[in-house]
């Protein structure tokens, strides 16, 4: 049992009055699901299995319902993350203003990529969709606080300050040591990227928009199969009933 798990009952007790307050704001208690998960994440740094279990008990929902809902939202982290969550905007307006250089700089400086956490557990890095600060491109959020008009120099200073513990934005609570990524797949196992990275996998045979192992575009292959199938149908029909042979051949 980890220290976090040992501390969990006490945390629940401490948060209970706040949970009641939140539930009272809504006509139906299930509405409190998102705010309660937010609350637990604020204290634990991520959404633990214990937290989802507690919320399911408080709201009288099945744990599966809670986990299904939590998994829908990208700001709920189901694995521990770094103390500084660096979310760089990859939206169109930022990209038009050099966000790709900013992202490349972050990747190089941190030595990690999209959806990954540094070995020291200090930084998690994610490239996120439009943050609604297009007038101050390139922008990002550090633990959900905005940073605007990014330059490489600002990034250097920011990372140094975070390492020295002097950065203006408070570090996130970290109750468990993070692994290399917090993205989990359907089996609850750690996945190395999200689906937007599938684009690099050009040889996935199930990818109808892409290439198969032979380098043949899948749509063409499907059409070719269809033609073969049609030919086979003609043959079968002709064998079964020679009388329709002529009709088929037409």
């Amino acid at each position, binding site marked *: 049992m980890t220290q976090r798990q040992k501390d969990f009952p006490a945390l629940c007790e401490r948060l209970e009055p706040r949970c009641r307050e939140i539930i009272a704001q809504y006509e139906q208690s299930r509405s409190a699901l998102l*705010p309660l998960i937010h609350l637990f994440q604020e204290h634990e740094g991520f959404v633990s299995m214990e937290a989802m279990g507690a919320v399911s008990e408080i709201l009288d929902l099945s744990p599966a319902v809670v986990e299904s809902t939590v998994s829908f939202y990208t700001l709920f982290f189901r694995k521990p993350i770094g103390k500084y969550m660096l979310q760089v905007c990859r*939206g169109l307006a930022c990209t*038009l203003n050099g966000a790709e250089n900013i992202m490349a700089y972050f990747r190089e400086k941190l030595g990690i990529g999209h959806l990954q956490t540094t070995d020291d557990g200090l930084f998690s890095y994610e490239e996120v969709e439009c943050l609604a600060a297009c*007038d101050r491109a390139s922008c990002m*959020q550090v633990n959900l606080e905005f940073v605007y008009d990014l330059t490489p120099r600002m990034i250097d200073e920011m990372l140094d300050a975070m390492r020295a513990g002097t950065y203006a934005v408070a570090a996130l609570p970290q109750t468990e040591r993070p692994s290399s990524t917090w993205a989990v797949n359907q089996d609850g196992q750690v996945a190395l990227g999200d689906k*937007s990275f599938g684009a690099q996998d*050009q040889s996935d045979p199930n990818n109808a928009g892409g290439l198969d192992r032979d380098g043949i575009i899948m749509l063409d292959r499907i059409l070719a199969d269809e033609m073969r199938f049609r030919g086979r149908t003609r043959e079968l029909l002709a064998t079964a009933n020679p009388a329709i042979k002529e009709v088929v051949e037409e």
Partner: protein
Amino acid sequence: MPVVKVLTAGIGEANLRDIGVYRERGGYKQFERALRTMSSKDVLDVTERAGLRGRGGAGFPTAKKWSFLPGKAEVRYLACNCDEAEPGTFKDRMLLEEAPHLVLEGMLIGAYAIGCHHAYIYIRGEFKRGYAVFMDALSQARRAGMVGSDLFGTGYDLDVTLHRGAGAYICGEETAMLNSIEGKRGEPRLKPPFPAVQGLYGAPTVVNNVETLAYLVPLLEKGAEWFASVGTERSKGYKIVSISGHVRKPGNYEVPLGTPVRELIELAGGLRPGRKLMAVQPGGGSSACIFEEQLDLPYDYESMQKAGSMLGSGAVVVMDDTTDFVRAAFNLVRFFAHESCGQCTPCREGGDWLERVLHRLVEGRGLQTDLDMLMKVSHEITGLNLCPLGDSIEPFLASVLKRFPEQFEARVLGRKPAPAATA
């Protein structure tokens, strides 16, 4: 230059987050006046005569939306949509952070207009600061007797609940938002029934955008005629336009609807020196591009629709001749593929296919058949989904593919790289 200050009045000059400052400037007077001297029907009439249309994207007439609620006195809800995530849009976040009391007063007036006693505001999960600012504004307003029971001694009760999202663009779709408020996955619902009949907790519900509701305040103050006197025949009043991309002074500009697109770009400082305009996306990530020859069109709902695009949320993204349109198309398609909730197959699979095809084009590994495939697949996604997200994939992609086919063709495997954009 046609810049006006209606909703944006005082922003950057006064601390409008303080209820004292807001009230000194006439704040909450319109809500009080509505409660004391106007019936719900009166507020609806003013809004109808003003011709106010939704500022969130669809541009639906606000009074008409309200009038769809069944007439009988029963439980009904107002949900204010502050899940602003349309690529290029940043007006609601500004209002939320800089003028929270204006947003709240607009919500209160809107709630009163439909006879609602419990209003919700859905704030995008990323807007941590906006959430804190609005939470503070709400408690100030509660202490000042603007929110609560028996308001101004009229016997009218009205409570407001803040609901914070957790990172999902789709929750900006109204029925997905209602599911999210109900504590469910943010998946859009099948319509009908529309929210006006069966919305939050199964009760009649109106979902209005932040900016739409905020305009109710000046509208009541200055009257329907004042609002209807600007704009075009069917697009009345003012609009905050978020201008970004390749302009020198990106930002939020409040203008009368019908201002020519060219003037909007000039307002935002114009292009960088020596650059040539290639395309403008006039209504956020979901809209098709318009081009140089269409810049004199008035920026209103009808003209943008006639030009094959839309005004949408009012996000104008300007692209000059340094733009790589294959990358831009990849960027937006990836966005929609990432944000698809996955309920409808055309949107879920189609978006993913397109993203993969565009990715190999970006890398210069495209196939001869890819251009046709992009057109075909994006067109076949359109119109087959529960909500407009899937239909939002085609417009930008198709418009730039038709306009700049050479940029896409140059990325087919074995072709020479496209000549670099000239200054």
